[in-house]
């Protein structure tokens, strides 16, 4: 009885907080209500999550959590299921609790088929102690915000140890990432792998910022037949024989385009064409992960591909805007791997491009910004004609400018500006397109300023027809 009382009080107070946050217009209130509710009723998350009728799916890993989880949500929605989803990337225990609170009645009833939760890697053990997932999707492991997580090995062990306490939980794993694939035996449930096959864009040499290239089992350096990017690829350990497992869901004939990525897809349920309406190889990986999760949830493959073709990105995940006639792209950057992919996309845009880079160093961004020196900005030295102007902003904009200078970018192309001036400058720059890259806490202010000028443009109808 005491629990019921605490539960109802918690929900009531959380509702009041949600209402206040909205009234004051401060932040998006994606974690505060959960924080308050957990304080009043620590068991609330477990209680609410248990009510998901068909189960709980969690997505974790370094990059692509938000995108993958939103894609899974779209698939479940398309299949007619009711879902609870933490769609704004609020992936700590407070944000996850808030997602449930939004769907809970005053009496603590949640009417949903699936809970689809993106979970921060470091929070994963804590969340899984309270909520038992039926399926866990792991995207990849890259070096990220080291001052918060410690080293990459520590992160992988955290997830492994948490999975070992979840016997029977199903896994959807990225076959191309040795660190992820090494988790296969941890939970003891069914494992389905996804991955990309060899295609025109694979390389035989590796880019910088690779860290996961040692065998996660025996520590020897892995041998690669080819790389997709970073440590993702076709690997084999010469020491113990650990190698890329065959991917049940595999993309081949990859076709990267400016606005979308397509591939042929081989799966246990048959062969399909997969269209992801966002650019970048890494988004194709997110699509493959979501497709595989959809299969495990029992959704028809045709329904899955239709849902994915209609996917619209969340804030700052390759979001498209238009300012007058100028296409504008907004993207989150948070670690070297993601930033390198972002630069690759930037260089594939019609040039010259006006670029904004916003770097903050709050806790959520990582207080240590030395990772900027692990990003290969040197590609901008070779390709500087493709870039019109690089405007640096945010709390550490000045340091970003130093990084570009030492990458060999011509000085006259580097500018440091306060944020609203910076956004204005790239929008009004003479380039053909604009590309805005921001760290986590810089993303919201940049997005707010940007949407004051530019029109959001993520509707699928606006995509050109297949050519």
């Amino acid at each position: 009885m005491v629990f019921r009382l605490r539960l109802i009080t918690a929900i009531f107070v959380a509702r009041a907080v949600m209402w206040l946050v909205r009234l004051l217009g401060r932040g998006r209130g994606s974690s505060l209500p959960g924080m308050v509710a957990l304080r009043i009723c620590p068991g609330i998350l477990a209680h609410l999550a248990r009510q998901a009728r068909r189960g709980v799916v969690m997505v974790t890993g370094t990059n692509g959590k938000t995108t993958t989880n939103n894609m899974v949500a779209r698939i479940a929605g398309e299949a007619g299921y009711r879902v609870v989803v933490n769609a704004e990337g609020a992936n700590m225990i407070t944000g996850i609790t808030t997602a449930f609170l939004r769907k809970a009645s005053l009496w603590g009833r949640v009417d949903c088929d699936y809970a689809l939760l993106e979970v921060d890697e470091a929070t994963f053990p804590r969340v899984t102690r309270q909520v038992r997932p039926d399926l866990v999707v792991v995207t990849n492991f890259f070096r990220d915000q080291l001052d918060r997580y410690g080293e990459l090995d520590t992160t992988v062990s955290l997830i492994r140890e948490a999975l070992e306490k979840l016997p029977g939980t199903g896994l959807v794993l990225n076959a191309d990432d040795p660190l992820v694939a090494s988790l296969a035996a941890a939970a003891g449930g069914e494992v389905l792998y996804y991955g990309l096959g060899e295609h025109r864009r694979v390389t035989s040499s590796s880019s910088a910022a690779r860290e996961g290239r040692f065998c996660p089992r025996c520590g020897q350096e892995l041998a690669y037949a080819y790389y997709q990017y970073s440590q993702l690829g076709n690997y084999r350990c010469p020491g113990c024989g650990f190698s890329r497992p065959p991917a049940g869901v595999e993309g081949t004939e990859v076709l990267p385009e400016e606005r979308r990525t397509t591939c042929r897809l081989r799966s246990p349920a048959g062969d399909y064409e997969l269209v992801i309406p966002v650019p970048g190889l890494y988004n194709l990986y997110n699509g493959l992960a979501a497709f595989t999760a959809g299969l495990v949830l029992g959704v028809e493959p045709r329904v899955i591909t239709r849902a994915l073709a209609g996917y619209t990105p969340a804030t700052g995940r390759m979001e498209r805007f238009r300012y007058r006639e100028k296409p504008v792209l907004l993207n989150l950057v948070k670690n070297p791997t993601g930033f390198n992919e972002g630069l690759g996309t930037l260089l594939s845009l019609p040039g010259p491009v006006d670029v904004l880079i916003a770097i903050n160093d709050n806790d959520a961004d990582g207080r240590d910004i030395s990772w900027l020196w692990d990003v290969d900005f040197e590609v901008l030295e070779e390709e500087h004609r493709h870039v019109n102007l690089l405007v640096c902003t945010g709390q550490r904009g000045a340091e970003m400018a130093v990084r570009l200078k030492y990458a060999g970018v011509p000085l006259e192309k580097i500018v440091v500006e306060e944020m609203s001036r910076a956004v204005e400058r790239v929008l009004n720059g003479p380039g053909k397109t604009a590309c805005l890259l921001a760290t986590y806490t810089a993303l919201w202010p940049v997005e707010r300023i940007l949407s004051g000028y530019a029109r959001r443009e993520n509707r699928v109808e606006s995509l050109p027809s297949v050519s």
Partner: protein
Amino acid sequence: MKVCHLYPELLNLYGDRGNVMAFARRCRWRGLGVEVLPVNPGDPVDFREVDFLFLGGGSDREQNLIARDLEKRRDLLQAAVEDGLVVLAICGGYQLLGRYYRTLEGRVIPGLGLLDLYTEAGRKRMIGNVVIELEIEGEPVRVVGFENHAGRTFLGPQVSPLGRVLVGCGNNGEDGTEGARCRNVFCSYLHGPLLPKNPRLVDYLISLALARRGLPADLAPLDDSLENAAAEVMLRRLLK
């Protein structure tokens, strides 16, 4: 100028390769030719021919891999250091040059013993922005960076600290010292990376390297306004 980057693939935490970029760029901007030699375990290298040697830090596994390789090169490295080789060692690389590292369990891992200092594992990681003050050619210079280490380093009488801590923990969080200097060997816990936004320090290292070869060490001034602005952001924030 021959710049030797030791174990760039293994010791590559926290963007430390930026130190090599800063050294190389600032030489090139002054018309000095630079050759960067990445040296991995087993690769041959003659330290006598090297003008600047950089050693970064890595995670435990990588550090154990390179310790074995470095041990084989110890005598040659010591000879070069005595000849005035300019060295910058950061974090793990710094610890490795000392006498030993004592783990929490009390196990003693021997270092190269090139410098009179030792390190003990601590329970609490020292993480955060740092400002230190050091002296370059008699002038006080403020240097900014970011530290992230659990090891606590203590200096023996034969080495002097690189600088004095104004904000942050430094060597051990107790004695107010940061880093170490002995001959032309410079050690520090500062990532950031250290050199790019502290151009005075880079130029000092370049002039020491030139002087060792008997070349004129007067460097043409460069426009450092971006570098100084970046350092100023942190100085203003941290020193209030």
